[in-house]
């Protein structure tokens, strides 16, 4: 780890607050990269990860936004353009919304997470999107997050003031042979409402290790969707933490695996107080020789009465060489709760396919429609003006996937 370590240590000296960076880097160095012996990393092809392939350097010139990113931007009320973790441009002006650069923070919750520590050491600052108290932002805010160099350690905080409402779409692109490690927080004050969708379309060579945490105050509502298409190894950890009663979280995660991709999804629905509700729907499809794992934890503290927590994980096998694992976990320390989980792994439903064929749809089109449909269900969180754009892009991607049915 010389190239990576040397370039990282040189780089962090150029950032603000280098003392704290050195501290985070030291913590990361002591911890070291995880290995597959760690239960939480057992499915990751960590043996292939050679950090010395990546040099940590300052941001290069901003490349052109892709046509797709431009289309998203065209439908947004505000566009925050991020290249290699730095804000390069903010366009549009929405009342009650500000974009600030705040010194990166480190939280003890990341103590055992080497990649989060790496981010805390190397992210230039926390890109902080602040929505003022009681502001109702009706136009979507789009964050175009591009990786142009070897590495990107973006830190994004969305801070929702009391009783505010907003809708955020984050799009990730670029990342050829890169290490992309975003760290995200969604902090919702009492009665705030946030819809956030992340669409990950990184290059198929990228390593993407992402983590997001939502904290929900009393009566806050977080509706989150994570749609992942790209990266060689895609890890997406999404946690929700309930701090106030009446809070609700709906999380939809979905992925399409192709080639030899690995999609590694982890979720944690952490109910610290009662009368809170979480609904999680995770759906994925694996084609070719791709693999996926879904590991979800529902955690309910003693005293969190009347918690309602649900978890569903559905996996579609599009090739006999693809593989999906589903690992639901429950840790419940209170009796007066409603808790449910379900999961399935299998090919496309033969009878649904026949139904479409019996209307005159060809087999290939029937399968295509069903797979598109599998994903379309997950787009409900997107603001309507962007749902069509993402849906068309997804349909285009799906056309390139080979479906082999048993």
């Amino acid at each position, binding site marked *: 780890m010389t190239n990576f370590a040397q370039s990282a240590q040189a780089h962090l000296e150029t950032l603000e607050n280098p003392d704290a960076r050195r501290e985070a880097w030291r913590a990361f160095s002591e911890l070291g990269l995880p290995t597959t012996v760690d239960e939480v990393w057992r499915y990751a092809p960590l043996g292939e990860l050679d950090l010395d392939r990546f040099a940590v350097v300052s941001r290069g010139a901003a490349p052109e936004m892709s046509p797709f990113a431009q289309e998203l931007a065209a439908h947004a009320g505000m566009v925050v353009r991020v290249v290699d973790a730095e804000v390069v441009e903010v366009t549009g002006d929405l009342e009650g919304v500000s974009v600030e650069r705040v010194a990166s923070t480190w939280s003890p919750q990341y103590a055992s997470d080497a990649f989060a520590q790496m981010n805390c050491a190397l992210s230039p600052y926390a890109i902080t999107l602040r929505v003022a108290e009681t502001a109702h932002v009706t136009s979507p805010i789009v964050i175009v997050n591009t990786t142009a160099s070897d590495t990107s350690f973006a830190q994004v905080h969305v801070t929702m003031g009391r009783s505010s409402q907003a809708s955020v779409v984050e799009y990730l692109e670029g990342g050829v042979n890169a290490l992309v490690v975003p760290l995200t927080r969604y902090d919702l004050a009492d009665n705030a409402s946030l819809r956030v969708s992340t669409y990950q379309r990184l290059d198929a060579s990228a390593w993407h290790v992402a983590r997001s945490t939502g904290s929900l105050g009393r009566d806050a509502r977080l509706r989150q969707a994570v749609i992942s298409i790209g990266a060689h190894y895609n890890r997406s950890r999404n946690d929700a933490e309930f701090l106030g009663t009446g809070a609700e979280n709906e999380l939809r995660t979905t992925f399409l695996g192709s080639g030899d991709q690995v999609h590694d999804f982890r979720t944690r629905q952490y109910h610290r107080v009662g009368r809170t509700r979480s609904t999680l729907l995770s759906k994925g499809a694996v084609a070719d020789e791709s693999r996926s794992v879904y590991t979800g934890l529902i955690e309910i503290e003693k005293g969190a009465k009347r918690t309602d927590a649900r978890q569903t994980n559905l996996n579609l096998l599009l090739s006999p060489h693809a593989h999906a694992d589903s690992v639901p976990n429950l840790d419940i320390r209170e009796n007066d709760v409603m808790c449910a989980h379900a999961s399935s792994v299998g090919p496309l439903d033969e009878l649904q396919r*026949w139904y*479409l*064929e*019996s*209307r005159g749809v060809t087999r290939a089109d029937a399968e295509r429609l069903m797979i598109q*449909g599998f994903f379309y269900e997950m787009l409900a969180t997107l603001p309507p003006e962007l749902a069509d754009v993402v849906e068309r892009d997804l349909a285009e991607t799906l056309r390139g996937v080979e479906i082999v049915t048993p």
Partner: protein
Amino acid sequence: MSTLTIEGLRVEVAGKEVLRGFDLSMSSGEVHVIMGPNGSGKSTLAHALAGHPGYRVLGGSVRLDGVELLDLSATERTRHGLFLALQHPMEVPGVRPVDLLAAAGAAREGLLERMRDEARRVELRPEVLDRFVNVDLSGGERKRAEMVQLAILRPRFAVLDEVDSGLDVDALGAVARRLQEATTEWQCGVLAITHFRRLLHELTATTIHVVSEGRVVATGGAEMAEILERDGYEPFRDLAP
């Protein structure tokens, strides 16, 4: 003028031969009704005609204008002009009716408008067509939605499996009237499978076939329905070989 000819059709379901030499012939614009007790093979006929994967054809022939349908895939049979409306139309989450019909060959131009018009004709709220195919629809709404598909695809022959089951009087009337109109609008041949005579209040049968133990045991005109109403299926059982 088109003809549908079923000859000596034998079909197996779960290892049991349910259709045992079924014969029927009909032409465009006609309404043939198949009646018979539970287990006589009525639904098996519908599913076998549409190529359901759970039904295995053992022998016989189904020709539409001389083309052997049994040699064709489910898709090709429908594209050749045979449409099946199901007793329990399936939910297909994530697929919208408009995309289904476009993929089935309906012209995209003005499709949504035509679908909405057809929905109104069978008293189906057009908003229902914005939902995914049959998802969260009531039994009655599903049957009406099948009629919308039928009207857009305009098959030469429509096979309706227990189209009247689970329908209230209003829904049944709407569906029956739409089928009746189809027989003149594009000379659709209608092959309706039913338990009940009430379908025939609004749909004028050309011919009624009584089925028992996997074959047609009696064929007659509309008066046949009255005989069945009066005497039940019992007298016909003896006719089965």
